[in-house]
C-alpha cells in the first residue's frame, strides 16, 4: 500500500452500511389498549424492495402493527427501526420520518377540501419544500400512472372509491417514501373496483417498492408478496412465502382461518 499516513485504513465508515440492512425492523414490540394486550412480542423484518402481506382475523392487531410503524400508534415496549434508525418521539423528527413512510388507509382519507392534484402536491410542497413546478409535474405523472390524470381538478367526493384510493396511493408516492404501509386498502371498495387498486399495487411491487400490506386478497399476496405474515391475538403465529402459507399452513389457527376465507 502506498498510503503515507501510517495505519489509516482506506475505510468504509463505521460498521454495516445502512443501505444493506433491512428497511423495517420490528423487535419485541408490545402494545396495550388499556387492559387489552394487542401486540405481543411482535418481531418482523422487512428487506428493501420486499412486499410483506399481513393477514389474520379481525381484531388480531394487524392495523395496530401497521400504524405503529409510522407511530400513528405509540408502542409500550420494544423497538421499531426504519432504515436502521429508531422511531423518533413526537415532534419534527417524527414528522420527518413519517414523510419517508407512506400510508394508505382503508377509508382513503383524502383531504376533503382539496382537489386531487392539491392532495398529491401538499406534502412535497409543504414538507419537502420542493418547487411548485417540479411538484405539479411529478404529481400529474403519478396521477397518470394510477390512471386518474383526468380527475386532477376534481374533489375527492366526486370520485369513485377505487379512484379515490388510487389518488391516495399517488399522494403517498409523491413523497418518494422508502416504504408504504397499506391498511386494508381494498376493504371499503365495491368488488368491481378492487382490481383497479390491486393492479396499481402490483405495479408498485414490480417496480421494487417496499410495501407492508394488510389484506385478505390472496391473489395479490401470491402475485406480489415475498412474505406472508399470519397474525392472531396480537401475535405473529406464522410467517412464510405465500405459496407455502396458502398451500401448507403450519398452525391450526392459520388452517382454521384459511378454511374460513377460502369457502367464501
Amino acid at each position, binding site marked *: 500500500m502506498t498510503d503515507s499516513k501510517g495505519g489509516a485504513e482506506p475505510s468504509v465508515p463505521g460498521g454495516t452500511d445502512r443501505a444493506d440492512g433491512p428497511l423495517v425492523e420490528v423487535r419485541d414490540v408490545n402494545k396495550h389498549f388499556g387492559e387489552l394486550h394487542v401486540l405481543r412480542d411482535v418481531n418482523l423484518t422487512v428487506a428493501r424492495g420486499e412486499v410483506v402481506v399481513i393477514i389474520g382475523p379481525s381484531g388480531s392487531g394487524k392495523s395496530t402493527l401497521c400504524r405503529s410503524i*409510522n407511530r*400513528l400508534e405509540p408502542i409500550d415496549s420494544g423497538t421499531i427501526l426504519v432504515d436502521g434508525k429508531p422511531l423518533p418521539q*413526537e415532534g*419534527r423528527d417524527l*414528522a*420527518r*420520518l*413519517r*414523510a*419517508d*413512510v*407512506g*400510508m394508505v*388507509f382503508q*377509508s382513503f*382519507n*383524502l*383531504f*376533503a*377540501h382539496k382537489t386531487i392534484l392539491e392532495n398529491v402536491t*401538499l*406534502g412535497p410542497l*409543504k*414538507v419537502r419544500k420542493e418547487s411548485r413546478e417540479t411538484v405539479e409535474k411529478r404529481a400529474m405523472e403519478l396521477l397518470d400512472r394510477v390512471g386518474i390524470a383526468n380527475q386532477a381538478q376534481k*374533489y375527492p*367526493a*366526486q370520485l369513485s372509491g377505487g379512484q379515490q384510493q388510487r389518488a*391516495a396511493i399517488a*399522494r*403517498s408516492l409523491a*413523497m418518494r417514501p422508502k416504504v408504504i404501509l397499506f391498511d386494508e386498502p381494498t376493504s371499503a371498495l365495491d368488488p368491481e373496483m378492487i382490481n383497479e387498486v390491486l393492479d396499481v399495487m402490483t405495479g408498485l411491487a414490480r417496480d421494487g417498492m417496499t410495501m407492508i400490506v394488510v389484506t385478505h386478497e390472496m391473489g395479490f399476496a401470491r402475485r406480489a408478496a415475498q412474505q406472508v405474515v399470519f397474525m392472531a391475538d396480537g401475535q405473529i403465529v406464522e410467517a412464510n412465502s405465500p405459496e407455502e402459507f396458502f398451500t401448507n399452513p403450519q398452525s391450526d389457527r392459520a388452517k382454521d382461518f384459511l378454511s374460513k376465507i377460502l369457502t367464501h
Partner: protein
Amino acid sequence: MSLSDLLDFGPFFDNIDAILRGFWATIRLAALAGVFSLVIGTVLASLRVSPVPVLRAAGTGYVNIVRNTPLTLVLIMCSLGLNDTLGLTFSDDSGTTYYWWAVLGLSGYTGAFVCEALRSGINTVPIGQAEAARSIGLTFSQSLRMVILPQAFRAVIAPLGSVFIAMIKNTTVATAASYSEVVTEMKTLLDLPSFTSGAIPLFLGVAAGFLILVLPTGYFFGWLAKRTAVAR
C-alpha cells in the same frame, strides 16, 4: 301625549347627522372586532387542541373566564382599569384610545365564542383527515393550518354568523368603555333639554339601522356556508 307626537320622526331626521355618525362608529368597531375576534378565536382554538398541556390549559382558562364574565365588565375593565387607572393608552387622543380599548375588549370577548364554535367544527372533521396529514409528514401546526382548520371553518360558518350578529349588537355595550357609538349618540340626544318629543321614532330608527347591519350579515354567512360546504 298625542299620537302625532309618538310618530313624530321630525327629531330623528333633524339629528340624522349625529345618528349616522354614531352608526359609522358602530361599523368601525364591529368591522375591526370581527377581524380580531376571528384571529383571537383561531389562536385560542389551536391552543385548546394543542398536544402541549400548558397551552391547552391556557386556552381553556381564558375561554372559561372570559365567556363567564359580563361584556360590560370586560369593557369597563379595559377602559377604566387598564386605560384610566393603569395608564395604558394607545394615543394622546382619548377618542382614539377608547376606540382601541373597545375593539380589544369586544374582540377578546367575542374571540372566546369564536373559539368554541371553531372547536365544535374541529370535532366534525374525521380523525382520518388528521392521520393522513400526519402520515405525509406535516407537523401538528401544519396539519391544523392546512387540513383541520380549513375544514372546521367551513363546518361552522353558520354558527360563526350567529356569533358575529351577537357581536354587532354587543357593540352597543361599548358605550360603557367610553366609546361613543350609535347608542351613546342616541342617549345624548335624548338627554338634550331641547328634545321634547320623538323618542320612540328615534328608538325605531336606531333599531332599523341595526337591522340593516345585521340582516345582510346573516344572509352573507348563510350564502358562504352553502358555497364552501365540504362534500364527504
